[in-house]
């Protein structure tokens, strides 16, 4: 039964191939059917595989399927082989499950787009690449998926390439990702050199066998993490994600919320032994995660674009996941990844519904009071917001709490404090979003208002399903306070993620932490309520009082500008300078100069050819004199 898991990535691949070649000639209905079915089939196989996996003993983990030897030259070996273990099974489920829902949603969302087949080709390709990423059994193949999803991200962000901004955003995403990838591949090389193989099992046994010193481990871990910051939009390589919202909304949901951007978290979890070995690297991960979590949250505070708020929120949430990984609670990080997939894609899809209803409007300042127009979208959106804010008994609560508890338990109080602060901000900006969008005055133009309608069932059904999961998904990983062995999720991952240190907290402390985090979430919601429903003038007066901070936040700390000014522009300007002054003048000039100096000497010499006999005779005579003189002396 479990043998067939390697089919999981290949079904979308086949679908991609068919769509790529024949897509333009196929009817839309068929396209949507095939695309969705392919992902669904993968999902089914994932479920089957999971079931099979549960029935297999832990000792035989991971199940590896080696298809063929891919690159093999000298000591460089990389096979095309997949592995199934709890981690990849969870990821496969999330990818295919959420992916399927988003495919279905897209059928409705993209119904009128003329590049329909292209869209689904890309989407299937993405699923394929993501599955390669999560299921590969070695780090080189993982890199294939890693780059593959980057490509799809590029393609889908730039899906509407006629828009400059979309094309730009896609390119930016790819290049920024590549920066991370460059570090990543160097990390891979270190692994290959020190381990001799890229297989995860080999890496793990090398680490546990002590073949890798801590220093090397730190080096590798940091390099890989740089790759992760690119893919998962962490400081300093997060800049592409907000721009990535240029893509179609389902894409934002799938790639830039649920799956691809969490690949970094998956990778760190996959390499958990490495990060456990290297305390410094883990510390880096935790700090970067925490700082990103709060940093992105602050930027989300002032954004008016609904998807951008969600984008910053995603960055922030991934920060949380890295906090989890960094403090050694990989299971918690993965747990948050898993719940986040549901509620964040829910939020994005719901935002997509709003856009759909408002003819593509994204600016919150032009919304308001949508509650009554969108009776289905509003509650689902609300569920998502509650989940992300960490209100008890929704999925986000459990996962975020697990992370913060572990952070506290591991003694990283600073990180914990940042996490709590982030929680306040999260709750605040999410409810700011809710209040501005669905409550208060209606600020739409009448033109837009006329067309407001709930989207078709293809879009609403996934919303409902995701809302459902956003509520219940957390119950597979209950914290200790609710009972000893209720963290099923953590147990399931145990074979892959060796528990480093159990949270040695008293029940009382745990309760306290839970209460604190719930309290701050509620405070955040309350502030949002006061600011945007009760006294809408407060934000304005705050802006008036702290214009600098507002501007800083509104302009995203000017990071894009700084990057442009420090890296991009100097590179381009410098290259132009080198091209003009060095390439053309010096190098080319040397070449041309040689030629023209030859010609110049030729000219000088031809002056001696005066055409006069006596000059010729004179030169003859001089030559003869010198000749004889040479012979004489």
């Amino acid at each position, binding site marked *: 039964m479990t043998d067939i898991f390697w089919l999981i990535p290949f079904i979308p691949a086949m679908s991609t191939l068919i769509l790529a070649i024949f897509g333009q000639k196929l009817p839309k209905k068929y396209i949507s059917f095939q695309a969705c079915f392919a992902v669904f089939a993968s999902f089914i196989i994932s479920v089957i595989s999971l079931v099979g996996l549960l029935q297999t003993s832990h000792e035989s983990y991971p199940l590896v399927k080696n298809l063929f030897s891919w690159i093999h030259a000298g000591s460089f070996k990389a096979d095309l082989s997949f592995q199934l273990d709890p981690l990849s099974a969870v990821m496969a489920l999330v990818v295919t499950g959420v992916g399927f829902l988003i495919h279905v949603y897209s059928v409705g969302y993209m119904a009128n787009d003329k590049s329909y087949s292209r869209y689904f080709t890309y989407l299937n390709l993405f699923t394929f690449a993501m599955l390669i990423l999560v299921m590969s059994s070695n780090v080189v193949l993982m890199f294939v998926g890693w780059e593959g999803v980057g490509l799809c991200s590029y393609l889908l962000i730039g899906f509407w390439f006629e828009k400059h901004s979309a094309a730009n955003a896609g390119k930016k995403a790819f290049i920024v990702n590549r920066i991370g990838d460059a570090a990543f591949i160097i990390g891979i090389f270190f692994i290959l050199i020190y381990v001799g193989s890229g297989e995860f099992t080999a890496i793990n046994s090398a680490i546990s066998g002590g073949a890798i010193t801590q220093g090397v481990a730190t080096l590798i871990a940091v390099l890989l993490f740089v790759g992760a910051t690119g893919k998962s939009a962490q400081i300093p390589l997060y800049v592409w994600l907000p721009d990535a919202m240029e893509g179609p909304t389902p894409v934002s949901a799938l790639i830039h919320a649920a799956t691809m951007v969490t690949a970094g978290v998956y990778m760190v979890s996959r390499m958990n032994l490495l990060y456990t070995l290297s305390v410094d690297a883990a510390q880096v991960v935790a700090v970067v995660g925490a700082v990103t979590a709060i940093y992105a949250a602050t930027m989300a505070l002032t954004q008016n674009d609904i998807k951008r708020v969600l984008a910053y929120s995603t960055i922030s949430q991934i920060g949380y996941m890295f906090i989890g990984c960094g403090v050694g609670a990989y299971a918690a990080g993965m747990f948050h990844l898993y719940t986040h997939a549901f509620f964040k894609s829910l939020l994005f899809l719901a935002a997509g519904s709003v856009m759909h209803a408002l003819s593509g409007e994204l600016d919150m300042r032009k919304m308001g009071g949508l509650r009554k127009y969108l009776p289905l979208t509003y509650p689902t959106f609300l569920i998502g917001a509650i989940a992300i804010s960490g209100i008890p008994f929704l999925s986000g609560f459990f996962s975020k709490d697990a992370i913060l508890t572990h952070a506290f338990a591991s003694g990283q109080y600073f990180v914990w404090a940042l996490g709590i602060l982030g929680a306040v901000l999260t709750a605040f900006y999410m409810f700011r979003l809710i209040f501005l969008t669905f409550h208060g005055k209606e600020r739409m133009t009448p033109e837009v208002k006329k067309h407001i309608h709930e989207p078709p069932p293809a879009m609403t059904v996934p919303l409902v399903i995701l809302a459902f999961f956003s509520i219940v998904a957390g119950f597979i990983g209950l914290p200790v306070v609710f009972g000893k062995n209720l963290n099923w999720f953590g147990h399931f991952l145990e074979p892959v993620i060796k528990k480093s240190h159990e949270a040695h907290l008293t029940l009382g402390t745990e309760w306290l932490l839970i209460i604190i985090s719930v309290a701050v979430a509620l405070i955040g919601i309350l502030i949002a309520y006061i600011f945007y429903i009760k006294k809408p003038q407060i934000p304005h007066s705050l802006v008036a009082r702290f214009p600098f901070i507002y501007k800083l936040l509104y302009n995203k700390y000017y990071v894009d500008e700084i990057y442009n000014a420090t890296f991009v522009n100097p590179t381009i300007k410098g290259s132009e300078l080198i091209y003009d002054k060095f390439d053309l003048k010096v190098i080319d000039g040397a070449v041309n100069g040689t030629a023209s100096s030859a010609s110049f000497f030729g000219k000088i010499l031809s002056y001696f050819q005066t055409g006069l006999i*006596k000059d010729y005779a004179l030169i003859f*005579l*001089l030559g*003869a*004199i010198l000749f*004889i*003189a040479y012979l*004489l002396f």
Partner: protein
Amino acid sequence: MAHFLFFLLAIVCIASVLGMIISKNQAYNALFLVLAFACMGGFFALLDAPFIAVVQIIIYAGAIMILFIFVIMMINLREGLPPERKKWTLYFALGIAVVLFVELILTMKSAFSSLKSGGIEKIGSPTDIGRLLFTEYLYPFEITSILIIAALVGAIVLVKKRDKE
């Protein structure tokens, strides 16, 4: 006596060559040259080469120079051409002359001592020369015939009036 004759001839010879250089008039030049060649004949005679001396005077001073004078008269330029007027060229020429002369002297210096001037066993009498010409030097002699053909053909083809055009 011989010394006197030699120096006299040498002075005349060099003077006439110098005269050729300095004089503007080509006719004078030719005459100077005739004089120089005549002196040359004298030298040949001094060097026990009477036949060549005669040949020199007859062919050179007689035939060739007559040819020159014919041509000069055919051309008959009104004004003569002085040598190069630019001063530096003349100085330059002088310099070159000195250097070349020094070089040649240095070259031949080694020979001065080894030259055996006393030998008078053989005098280039017409008989001896004639015999040699038709035995040992037959081939060069034949070649001179080709040479003269070539010169004839060349000279004719260059100066003959064109067929009516």
